[in-house]
């Protein structure tokens, strides 16, 4: 979708934190990406290689932890993993609007020295 821009944001956040820690090199950047975040991990990896060139994160390893969509049914009061498009409760077939997990899109941690 707009992975280059998002990865530029991620790099800016990483460089900011690295500067605060007075680090001279970033070895690892760990992202948390939900299935509903609208971004493709492969496109993020491609963008990562492009945007880190010439920075202290050039040699960094990119770790992407993905999170499947998890919904909550208010009728059955259960959590469920939606199986296809739409968030239909497998028990009562009600459409859920309560999304517990899957929208994550964050920089979780860095390894620096």
């Amino acid at each position, binding site marked *: *979708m*707009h*992975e*280059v*821009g*998002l990865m530029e*944001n*991620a790099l*800016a*956040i*990483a460089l900011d*934190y*690295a500067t*605060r*820690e*007075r*680090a*001279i090199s970033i*070895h690892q950047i760990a*992202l948390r990406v939900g299935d*509903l975040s*609208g971004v493709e991990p492969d*496109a993020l990896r*491609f*963008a990562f290689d492009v945007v880190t060139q010439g920075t202290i994160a050039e040699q960094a390893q990119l770790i992407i932890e993905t999170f499947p969509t998890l919904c909550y049914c208010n009728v059955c009061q259960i959590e469920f993993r939606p199986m296809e*498009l*739409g968030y*239909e409760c497998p028990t009562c077939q009600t*459409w859920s*609007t309560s999304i517990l997990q899957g929208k994550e*899109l*964050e*920089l*979780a*941690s*860095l*390894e*620096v*020295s």
Partner: protein
Amino acid sequence: MCTDCGCNEIDSVVLHSATAIHHHAHNHHAHTHHAHTHDDHDQHASSTQTVEVHERLMSKNDRFALQNREIFQSHSLLVLNVLSSPGSGKTALIERMAKAHGHRAGQVGVIVGDLATENDAQRIRAAGATALQITTGTACHLEADMVAHAVAYLDLAKLDLLVIENVGNLVCPAAYDLGETLRVVLLSVTEGEDKPLKYPTAFQSADVVLLTKMDIAEAVGFDQATAIANIRRMAPQAKLFEVSARTGFGMDAWLIYLQSQWNRLHPIVTHEAPIPSEALS
């Protein structure tokens, strides 16, 4: 900015307007700096360490969206972020809404995003509204900081309603909060009944879905029941209205709903109601 769309020139955004009015009496750029002290400020850290961050990649946009929302709320301003594919009738809808505002059409503010040309803003101005065009160059969506910049050119205290017409695109704009009160997603009858299934993110994020161009639904063989079922499936949270900007069909219900949302922001109504009653008859 978007790998799919090939847009990467957010910095090339051009705003077509006159003098800026600065609403920003204070700065919300709450960058947190050193929460801890370093004993070795003159030396680089030598060993590898893990730094916990947990910051959203959209945090820059989120900060501007929050700032926009605070400014809008300080004016009790109802703000719509209108999303659709190109050609779904966003501009025609806004023209009709401005005209329905009667003698107060100038109090409808519109920020229009397009890659190029000022055509849409000119159309909306001709309908009586106060319109600003943002040309984004190659960027396929509006971001909250572009809206913050544009808003500085509007006298928000004089507006009854602010409509942000996003760039025609059902993918990328859905990911960017602009600080709006309501997100309005359009689906025109010419687009195919399965569009809500194909572009789930936009519909899932909608507060309102408008089925547009209803006057030609029959001519194009629009399967209304299937389209509504698909909208209900992907956007069970959204209010649904069927409208035609050309004939005015369904506009009353949509405008009454907007009036109800305006009333929620103005619990004690001391102003003239923003939508003249003659427009609803």
